[in-house]
């Protein structure tokens, strides 16, 4: 999926897939924190959006 | 029709007027009757049998028959069958709704004048017929004998119980016959399917118009019995349901042959239906 999104011009950093079990709260929080940090500098996404 | 509503619907026939649910009556576990009005009062004065588009703006829009009307409101009896009707059943008094209409041809009131009226309904199918029953009650001297034959799956599935057991039997020269497919401990009325019930009651075809509405399976078995009793195709009138989106004969999906149910229906005589392709 990540590769396909990259292929259609979406920054692969904007999409991540992680396998997190329901019991892995810490891993979930860590993943989200990291992802947010990585995404912030990229700015708002303008792709795959409509003009309206 | 109230003037502001008429003007708006003329200018933008596909844009609803915003109205409000002012009363909700629980008829059965899955049927509720909604009383709807607008700030201009009753949005329009439909003929019995006509339809209206009712919407919950964020959920969707669908065509419903107008069950009856009061001085200042319209009534819709709606069974839970999909996303919109589920949402409507969640709604409470005060809920804003969209409404546009009225659509279609109603029951042929002039054709029926002076005749005996036989109403046959099954399940939620009594909802559209009820508008005509009330029309006859309100203009009682213009119509002959009234007979209402109604059936539902079980006693708790009977709609309009107050009408069936209290109001309508009191109307002069009006016979009400109710049956259920399966009774329960408290049910002391008739048990059996509508078609057989009709056969037992044996209504007379002379100078009579029969208005039938119910599930397809009921209609299928009722028609041969009507024929046996001597009713002609012209004497049998029914009202159809089709998927509708626009209500004004443009969007294309409710056609049966070259008829559009929303404009040319939903009321058809059996004679008309037999001339149309069997695709409904």
């Amino acid at each position, binding site marked *: *999926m990540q*590769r*396909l*999104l*990259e*292929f*259609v*011009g*979406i*920054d692969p950093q904007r999409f*991540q*897939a*992680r*396998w997190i079990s329901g019991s892995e709260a810490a891993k979930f929080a860590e993943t989200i924190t990291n992802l947010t940090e990585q995404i912030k500098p990229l700015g708002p996404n303008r*792709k*795959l*959006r*409509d*003009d*309206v | 029709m109230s003037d502001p509503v008429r003007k708006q619907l003329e200018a933008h026939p596909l844009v609803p007027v915003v109205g409000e649910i002012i009363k909700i009556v629980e008829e059965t576990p899955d049927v509720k009757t909604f009383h709807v009005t607008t700030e201009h009062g009753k949005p329009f004065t439909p003929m019995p049998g006509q339809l209206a588009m009712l919407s919950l703006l964020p959920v969707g829009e669908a065509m419903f028959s107008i069950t009856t009307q009061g001085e200042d409101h319209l009534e819709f009896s709606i069974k839970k069958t*999909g*996303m919109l009707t589920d949402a409507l059943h969640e709604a409470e008094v005060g809920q804003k709704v969209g409404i546009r209409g009225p659509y279609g041809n109603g029951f042929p009131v002039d054709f029926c004048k002076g005749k005996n009226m036989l109403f046959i309904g099954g399940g939620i199918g009594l909802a559209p017929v009820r508008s005509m029953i009330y029309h006859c009650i309100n203009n009682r001297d213009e119509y002959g004998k009234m007979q209402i034959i109604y059936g539902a799956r079980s006693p708790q599935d009977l709609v309009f119980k107050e009408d069936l057991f209290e109001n309508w039997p009191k109307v002069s020269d009006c016979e009400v016959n109710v049956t259920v497919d399966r009774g329960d401990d408290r049910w002391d009325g008739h048990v059996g399917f509508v078609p057989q019930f009709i056969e037992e009651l044996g209504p007379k075809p002379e100078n009579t118009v029969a208005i039938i509405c119910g599930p397809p399976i009921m209609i299928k078995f009722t028609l041969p019995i009507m024929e046996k009793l001597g009713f002609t195709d012209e004497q049998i009138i029914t009202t159809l349901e089709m998927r509708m989106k626009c209500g004004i004969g443009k969007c294309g999906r409710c056609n049966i042959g070259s008829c559009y149910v929303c404009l040319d229906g939903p009321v058809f005589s059996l004679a008309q239906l037999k001339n149309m392709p069997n695709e409904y």
Partner: protein
Amino acid sequence: MMDLTQKMRDKARELLEKEEVKYVIGWEKGTFWYQSPPVFISRPEDVDKLVWDQFCINNLSKYLLDFKHLEGKIALFVKGCDSRGINRLLQDQQVQRDAFIVIGVPCPGMKDPEKAKGLSEDKADQLQLAEKCATCTTPNPVIYDELLGDEVAAAQVDDVERFARVNELEQKDPDEKYDFWKRQYDKCIRCFACRNVCPACNCRECVFDQAEPEWLGKRVVSSENQFFALTRAMHVAGRCIECGECERVCPMGIPIMSLNRKIIKDINNLFGSYDAGMNLEDQPPLGKYDVNDPEEFM
């Protein structure tokens, strides 16, 4: 090819006369000389409608789904690519193998009917192969009950050629890629021809048809069109048999196969070389688990 046409007719006549099958699905001549659309023959006297020429481009395997509930068998002719569609449907457990008879026809590659428009018939030989046939590696049917004619030699198509369009697009920078695909899918009118022709699109109810919940909005706008494109590509990932029908039938000329081939290329890189629909034994890489699978998402 004339010879094979006769063999097809004979075979069809035999099957229908012996009442072994109710229908034979093949190709017939269409409106123009460069069209050979599908035909369904149910009477022995109609078998002369069948033809085998350079324009039998339609993949007939998908039609098996229309006959799922037929009492009695059907027979159909398959080219190499079509036969991979049969394996697709069998592997997806959409059809029963004993419900139909497969008659294989080796295929030298079909000509491009779009390029033939407006040409006179005597120019037929100068026509190029259809794009979907130019990089074909399986001209001979891989599953059949009977094979008519002699096998043809498979062209040597290497990955450079097969993924040429993918490689070219991969070189672009992200904004160029996005502009390219946005422009392509802004053309999409959402007629669903690509889905309806695809043997890998065999769900009983397609997500794109579901109104509740409405996964795909019905507005024909950039976001919904691209969502449709990417979702469909992922749904056939690892199952696309590269018959190229989606791209051929697209009235708007969207290069759909570039999306599918991109996924195929990645799957080959990640899970080892795999060609969908080549046989019934190999499981699709995305349909099985192996301890050695790459784990970049863990």
